[in-house]
């Protein structure tokens, strides 16, 4: 039982990170029907910028005096950086292809993914970039179960971000505009919603969430690497599809499920096949419910 609870908490931590990445996939898919393969690279870039910012602040000596401010600053910095990156990439590589076949944009995204990960390798080197480990040492100890402060921080921050995003999308005017653009670009343009700005905003929000997941990943596993975006990227994409692509609540749920399945599969069945379980669950769910758990939220414009 203790083992189960421990694994549950680990799964929650990992699932939260997947959910944050999956949201970017699902939101971008919702507005422009593109699988943004470069999204995993936003996650990796977020991890890198976080590591750079934390190291810089530690070098200045602020880390000992007020670590919370440093951490907040690096989170904000890396989210802003990735939003900036994503908006520019959308303008360069995806916007000119919006009218072309979807495969062209998909390949452009694949090329962008290769370009970005190699760009990070060239600027930051091929070796792991280490995160400061003295942050968040220790945790609550309940006999067999340990919940580290880091896990509490990750889970609570994830929850805050997810709630914030839900509020943004479902309660504000901007969110309404985003949903309108996702449903019908022409009609939303007729009621004076600039689809270009909404698409840029969607990319920015998605990349910002991925960047926060990148820092969490770095803190949790201790280091980041230039090619780390790929595997979490495809798992998060699987999570987005599992929940029903284009559906924000579905992506959150899907991320949690994929994280849980991976942790429990690794804990109870076999650690070597942990990546297989996530995909088996995905295939099984899609077999019985071909549009994902929550159903898809995009309108099929083909008549």
């Amino acid at each position: 039982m203790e083992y189960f609870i421990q694994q549950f908490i680990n799964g929650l931590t990992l699932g939260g990170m997947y959910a944050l990445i999956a949201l970017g996939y699902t939101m971008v898919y919702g507005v422009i029907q593109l699988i943004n393969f470069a999204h995993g690279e936003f996650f990796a870039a977020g991890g890198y910028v976080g590591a750079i910012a934390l190291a810089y602040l530690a070098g200045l000596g602020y880390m000992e005096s007020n670590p919370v401010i440093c951490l907040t600053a690096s989170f904000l910095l890396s989210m802003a950086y990735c939003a900036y990156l994503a908006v520019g990439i959308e303008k360069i590589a995806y916007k000119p292809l919006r009218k072309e076949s979807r495969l062209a944009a998909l390949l452009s995204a694949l090329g962008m993914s290769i370009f970005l990960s190699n760009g990070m390798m060239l600027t930051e080197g091929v070796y792991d970039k280490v995160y400061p480990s003295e942050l968040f040492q220790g945790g609550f100890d309940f006999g067999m179960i340990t919940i580290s402060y880091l896990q509490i921080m990750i889970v609570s921050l994830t929850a805050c971000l997810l709630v914030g995003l839900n509020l943004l999308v479902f309660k504000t005017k901007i969110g309404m505009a985003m949903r309108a653009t996702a449903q019908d670009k022409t009609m939303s343009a007729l009621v004076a919603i600039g689809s270009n700005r909404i698409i840029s905003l969607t990319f920015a929000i998605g990349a910002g969430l991925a960047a926060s997941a990148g820092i969490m990943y770095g803190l949790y596993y201790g280091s980041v690497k230039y090619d780390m975006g790929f595997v979490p990227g495809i798992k998060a994409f699987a999570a987005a599809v599992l929940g029903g692509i284009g559906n924000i609540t579905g992506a959150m749920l899907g991320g949690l499920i994929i994280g849980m399945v991976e942790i429990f599969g690794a804990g109870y069945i076999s650690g070597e096949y942990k990546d297989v379980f996530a995909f088996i669950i995905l295939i099984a769910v899609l077999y019985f419910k071909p549009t994902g758990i929550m159903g898809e939220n995009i309108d099929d414009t083909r008549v």
Partner: protein
Amino acid sequence: MIQEFKKVWKQYTIGILWLLGLLWPMLGIHPDGTLTFKTTFTVWSYILSGSFICLMIYVMKASDALKFITEPVFRVTGNIRTVTAALPAWIWIIAILVFALLYPQFAGRYGTDVAVSVLLYICLGLGLNVVVGLAGMLDLGYIAFYGVGAYTYALFNTVYGLAFWVCLPLSATFACVAGCIVGYPTLRMRGDYLAIVTLGFGEIVRIILNNWMTLTNGPNGILGVKPIGIFIPVFENGFTFEHFWVKKLQFFYYFALALAILAAIGVQRLNFSRVGRAWESIREDETAAGLMGVNTFRYKLLAYAMGAVFAGLAGAFFAARMRFVSPESFTFLESAMVLCMVVLGGMGSIPGIILGVIALVALPEVFREFQSYRMLIFGATMIIMMLFRPAGLIPAKRVGTRSEEKEG
């Protein structure tokens, strides 16, 4: 010229400043608490000067300032085009065949090696073209079938000692069965769901190959796969057959060439058959195809299985050539690479795919001197190619006209 420049300078300036903002945090912030600007500006100024030259060429071309160069070039290419259009297609095919047959004679070992991978990728690309180009199903795990084919030959050969020619149909069969296993549950799904599920299957196959130590020897791979064996008639002391291992790359090249030619003929025949028409109708509109009496599920499964057969055959050849297989050769990046070849060349068009394969295999070889910049340039080229030629290098000619084209 100034007018043309006015049109683009704003976007260009914003873009290049955006790049500066992107580079600086990665290069200029140091862990010891210092900020520098020198490296960033050096790198940035290289990019600035390079891209500015490209921009100026573009502007000059757009404003007809380069007329004195482009006009004669256009005249020459136009003349060549009229001459080539007058020649029938078979002359081209024969010319290419003669070139391909003579190629190992003047290319060195390295050149032949690259050519062999080009030929194997052509077989793979044509197989994927059946799935993506003809039937319109996005498959991101295609390389799994290649892996199945390669491992089938490697295992049957090392464990049971079966010869290559016995294993070749076995590889095709196993890949076909794998294709049906993947296809059967997934083909009810549409577009992007299919993409992620095939990606998942591809990863599952790779992970199983990587972890099933007793069968596949895990990440270490299988060593000691035998090359292709053939019997050559010998006329000394009567008429006998002598067994001969195709170890030399130059001989293997001809087998790969035969495979690629057979694949090209096969796909061409499929394309212009009843089955190909059915696939095309499914690609254009599945509901309408179903209404017209096309059994969509069966044809989609057939497309999947056919694609897998081509990949399985290529896989067996791959194993015979490398004489070693390991899961590392069958990653998602390879699937993406094959997909790029198909889309870059032009979906559904056989010459396009061949050109796409040559471009994507040869390009990294050309940029080999740039070493670590190789993949960076590769990614950038992919984006630029898609931006300028979204339908591929040689787009496929479509049969008939469509209603939306008539309206436009």
